């Protein structure tokens, strides 16, 4: 394991410059310097032990006006799994209609984290109805 590492915290736009060193005396096993808030401490330790990221990408959708639907992991997944996860998502195909928050892949790569749709997409024919006018009750019901 690396003894010390310099990094930039990505928790908020401030971008604190952190120095994380191995410290057997502390509970987490690491000491963090340069963080201006406790979230930076957590981030620094996590980057050394198990760095994670939320993955946002798209999957194929059929019967819709668009060819791709955006999806995201509901929580952060381990960084080394990102390309493996991408490979899995590229094999997935969903069919419209899809609602925002709908699970696209359950428990991806055994992480316990689901992949969910990050928007609603309606069937192509349905969408065409709404092209020009508004105030259609059925559309309002569909979307809510």
């Amino acid at each position, binding site marked *: 394991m690396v003894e010390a590492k310099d*990094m*930039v915290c*990505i*928790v*908020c*736009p*401030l*971008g604190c410059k952190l120095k994380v060193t191995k410290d057997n005396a502390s509970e987490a096993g690491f000491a963090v310097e340069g963080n201006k808030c406790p979230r930076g401490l957590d981030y620094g330790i996590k980057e050394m032990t198990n760095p994670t*990221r*939320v*993955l*946002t*990408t*798209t999957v*194929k959708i059929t019967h819709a*006006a*668009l*060819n*791709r639907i*955006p999806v*995201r992991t509901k929580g952060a997944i381990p*960084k080394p799994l*990102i*390309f493996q996860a*991408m490979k899995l998502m590229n094999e997935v195909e969903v069919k419209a209609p899809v609602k*925002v928050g709908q699970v696209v892949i359950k428990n991806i790569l055994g992480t316990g984290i689901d992949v969910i749709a*990050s*928007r*609603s997409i309606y069937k192509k024919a349905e*969408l065409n109805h*709404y*092209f*020009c*006018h*508004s*105030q259609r009750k059925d*559309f*309002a019901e569909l*979307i*809510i």
Partner: protein
Amino acid sequence: MFNYEIVVIGGGPAGLAAAIEARKNGAKNILVIERDRELGGILQQCIHNGFGLHVFKEELTGPEYAEKFIQELITMGIEYKLDTMVLEVTDNRQITAMNTIDGIIHIQAKAVILAMGCRERTRGAIRIPGTRPAGVLTAGTAQRFVNMEGYMIGKRVVILGSGDIGLIMARRLTLEGAEVLAVAELMPFSGGLTRNIVQCLEDFNIPLLLNHTVVDIEGHDRVEAVTIAQVDEGFKAIQGTEKRFECDTLLLSVGLIPENELSKSAGIALDKVTGGPIVNESMETSIEGIFACGNVVHVHDLVDWVTEESKRAGRSAAQYIKGKLTSKGKTIKLKGTNGVRYVVPHLLKIENIAESIELMMRVDNIYRNVKLVVRGNGEVIKEIKRKHATPGEMETIKVTLKELSLGDYDEISVGIVKGEE
């Protein structure tokens, strides 16, 4: 001729928030006009997360952020027209628009809200030398192709410009299997957020070349290679520093321009620095009853601030049609000095400010440990410490009605004062 109380031009985050807020403040007859086939604007292609931290206190993707507003708009029964292009807005608030179902339509509005957003600078705007093959795209166009239409735009990619869209696309294309060879940036610093440099470039070992620009594009039908060189302080390429990258795609993330063709044809006064309309505390332009909000006024980096600003425009438009917005009384001029490039709004009418007002501004360079000082007729009204200020991140300062009434001010300025280290 159709009649509406309020017509909102543009159904992106600015238009949606303005229309919803106008309805909440009593406007009944509202129409939103959108030229795309759906509402949501550019948010629909921004599939990465980080939206909504201020407004919803959670981290959402662009489409999720948009959908919250679209649902609210539909639930309220606010009318909208999709696939509809506005051709003209006149100074007496008549709008000409067209689509394939209604044909050409004329609308008389009591108030108009301009929310057309912005567009990307292209290769022509920065005059890159070389041949003109396919494969040179703006980053936002590439984003739409990849994230919505489902077309991969290239296999080996060089990106010019390190604004947030360029950084986000470097990660996006890498995830989709392309090789991003380098991100070149003309300035000595990135225009994007530090966290994006870390999670989009460093996570994937993509080199960021500061003080570099593209000096040649090769290829006949398709891009075959791009040459990048280091630049001196005058942004001139230094001979002997050229690096040639064999690639099939060049992405440009070289800035955004507020889209104001309609504003110009209406005769609205524009600010040379922002490229958008000059607005007052109510987000009203130089023409009475025409309001503007979002990226059409000045380019924002966070959609959350667009929402806040647009709510103010929507609220003001609703007050205007009820005759509750005053055009009388004293007007205070606002301006940026000493490192502050501009301040929005440009003008303040004290009578129309309820409790406080948010001033938005951009600095011209990277600063550390400075103070943003608000002065009225030269005397200090307020000082705010900033550990860090960069051109890539918009600054906001809240000033209260009490602070604005400390003296009988004609002009308020915001400038940077360097603090002690």
